[in-house]
């Protein structure tokens, strides 16, 4: 003990944990809530159209989810620190085309090398975003809105009117998303593992906690000596790298890649993150919630398709979920603050 205090009669008692239980309950309730909504959706869709729960369809939902879950993981790192990465869809498109194109250019190139190329492209894009945000201190919303267009323009410039077709891709590559144990693709398990690692990192490492601190109160974070620029930079690099990897996977899932790959994904990713309970102004939320948000959106998307409902409703429902999620967040924060305040008042008297 190095505290300068002389211990009085200090028998450190266990502090009351009522307020913590309340907070825990609310956050767990948030993730349980998504699972609940998911279950209702699956049940309704399956009762109308039993085909919805056959293994082919479930597989499809999973392979759709893995892409968005990965992107949501990267986006969460950025959003937690009160920043936004709108360029993920364009990074994914760039990486998907350039990596898949390699198979026809370099004969017999190992699949792992292609993944490395995708990763490198993502790292490069993420570094550009990170440098402009953290060093030049331009608001990330503006920076990544610009790079959203710039990376996409690069993509179009490189591809022109061309495309990569599935026939040019090796069978082993195309089998990555489809090989499965029962209805669950191996890929989904790997991504679940990656998300779990991300969650563990954010919980148990100083730099992870500092992302939360930066999002919660940037000024206080600076005063506490947290290297905010470095942390934000790293978050953007990670988000880019993950989008790069997701691009390679996207190529394997869809097989046909033109210059529209991943178009408009950024909004779906932000939607997944917000629906998953990550505060849009940073400071709170989990990557597991964000991944569940991605699963929910992919499930709804597929349910509407299977039920033969116009895809117009798909976007409308995404929008509705965002409004509900953000309103719910706001409401919970207000109630929680009031409840906690009341508790500390009771404590004081």
């Amino acid at each position: 003990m190095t505290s300068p205090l002389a211990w009085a009669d200090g028998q450190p008692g266990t502090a009351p944990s009522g307020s913590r239980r309340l907070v825990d309950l609310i956050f767990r309730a948030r993730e349980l809530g998504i699972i609940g909504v998911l279950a209702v959706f699956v049940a309704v869709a399956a009762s109308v159209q039993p085909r919805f729960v056959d293994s082919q369809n479930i597989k499809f939902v999973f392979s759709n989810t893995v892409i968005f879950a990965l992107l949501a993981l990267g986006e969460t790192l950025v959003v937690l620190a009160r920043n936004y990465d709108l360029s993920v869809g364009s990074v994914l498109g760039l990486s998907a085309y350039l990596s898949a194109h390699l198979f026809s250019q370099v004969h017999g190139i190992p699949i792992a090398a292609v993944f490395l190329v995708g990763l490198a492209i993502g790292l490069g894009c993420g570094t550009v975003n990170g440098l402009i945000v953290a060093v030049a201190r331009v608001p990330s919303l503006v920076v990544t809105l610009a790079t959203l267009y710039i990376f996409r323009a690069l993509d179009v410039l490189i591809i022109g009117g061309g495309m990569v077709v599935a026939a040019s891709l090796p069978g082993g590559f195309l089998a990555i998303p489809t090989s499965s144990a029962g209805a669950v693709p191996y890929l989904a398990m790997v991504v679940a593992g990656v998300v779990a690692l991300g969650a563990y990192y954010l919980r148990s490492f100083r730099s992870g906690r500092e992302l939360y601190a930066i999002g919660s109160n940037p000024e206080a974070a600076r005063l506490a000596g947290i290297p905010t620029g470095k942390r934000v930079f790293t978050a953007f690099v990670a988000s880019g790298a993950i989008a790069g990897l997701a691009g390679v996977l996207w190529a394997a899932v869809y097989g046909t890649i033109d210059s529209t790959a991943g178009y408009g994904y950024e909004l779906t990713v932000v939607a997944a993150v917000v629906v998953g309970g990550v505060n849009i102004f940073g400071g709170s939320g989990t990557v597991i919630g964000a991944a569940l948000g991605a699963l929910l959106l992919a499930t709804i998307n597929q349910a509407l398709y299977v039920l033969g409902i116009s895809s117009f409703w798909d976007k409308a429902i995404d929008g509705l979920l965002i409004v509900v999620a953000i309103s719910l967040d706001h409401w919970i924060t207000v109630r929680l603050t009031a409840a906690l305040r009341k508790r500390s008042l009771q404590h004081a008297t």
Partner: protein
Amino acid sequence: MPADQGTPTHDGTSAPLLVVEHVTKSFGAVKALEDASLEIYPGEVHALVGENGAGKSTLVKILAGVHPPDRGVLRLDGQELALPSPLAAQDAGIAVIYQEPTLFPDLSVAENIFIGRQPLRRGRRIDTRAMHRRVVELLAPLGVDLDPQRIARGLSIADQQVVEIAKALSLDARVIVMDEPTAALSAYEVQRLFGVIESLRSSGVAVLFISHRLEEVFATCQRVTVMRDGRRVLSRPVAGLSADELVRAMVGREVVERGAADQAQGGRLVLEVDNLTREGVFVGVSFRVRSGEIVALAGLVGAGRSEVARAVFGVDRYDAGRVLVEGRPLKKASPAAAMAAGIGFVPEDRRLQGLVMELSIASNIALSSLGQVARFGVVRRGAEQRFASDWATRLRLRYGRFSDPVSTLSGGNQQKTVLAKWLSRHPRLLIVDEPTRGIDVGTKSEVHRLLVELARSGVAVLMISSELPEVLQVADRVLVMREGRLVAELGRHEASEEAIMAAATGQVEVLAR
């Protein structure tokens, strides 16, 4: 609370822990600190008192590593000390606890204390259990029961301060500076804080305690330093010092001669404020202002003066009481009704509340009188210019062109622009909040002259000012507020700096009724 019994206070033989030597600090042309000195000994609670603007906050910021001093040195344990950043101050063992701490609302109490320094276990992972144990150990001797795992959102200000104190202890801070920690606390919380301060002191920490409440100085501190106009004027043990001596030291300077000739009392009643209350801000405030008189609201920063003015004008709501203008009740929370009733309001922060900085000088002056310069709802530029130039001449405004944005004017001329804006409406009652803050001496006296002339022409003026010489020079009557209450009413001949400060710091309550 008996503070100085059986304590290891400095006895003249021990060396001071922290020394501030001849420190000078200026902001632009304003000298905030001039040759200020201070010595703090281990195991003492040292009070730092002074009027608004005496330089206390600047000194705190220098100790916190926020501002570097222009000249002079700091010493810790005899070693010279440079504090280029807040982090450097933290590393040196100096912790500053602000009136309203800034925590991370989404992080737990434990993480707020240990962010960036969490105890680690194998693999550089955070050892949450050890961290929570440390927090319980830190909090126990402070006699405060807080769950380390609770998030900081919703903590009372008192508890937030405790979190900051625990953080200071976890950093092994040897000097803890508390900048008006009691201003926002309830009586119960103040007592608890005093308990915490006492346990800090008895463990050898030096506490620099800044407060406006002299009774707190006598209750908790061993020594006191009084600052005035950026200098130290007194440093003495509290024992044997009287409240009177302290107040006199705080005020100090010779009383300034009154300027304007005495004003005849007894114009018609313009403003009546009856038992005005806004919960938690001010309570039962009643006063009257007659036409032709200047009434000053004096008191320390945070006493509720501006809040009363804002409630009268309708910017803020109030919970009880009423406001009458020329005998008619004024609708509450409606600046439009207040303006219609003939009230003008020159706010404290002219940049934020009084001017549209991007608009031209002419547009700003005409902003409150658009009816006079517009036809069919369209503002005519020519009329606007004529209107503005009339007022600019009367107020001796110095400007380049009328079409220049107001932001190009000096502070004093900006203030005149705000005054012109309101005077052009021919108000019955003009409320001015800190009319001369941050403007040069020459313009200051012009503003004073304007206010006096205005009163002579029959306008009732309610002035809020923290500068006592200004209050004494301009006001016909002085109302003193302290902690949300009106505690004294002083006529022109009773008002002196000593009397006002005594009332403002709670040494006497004189309500001349």
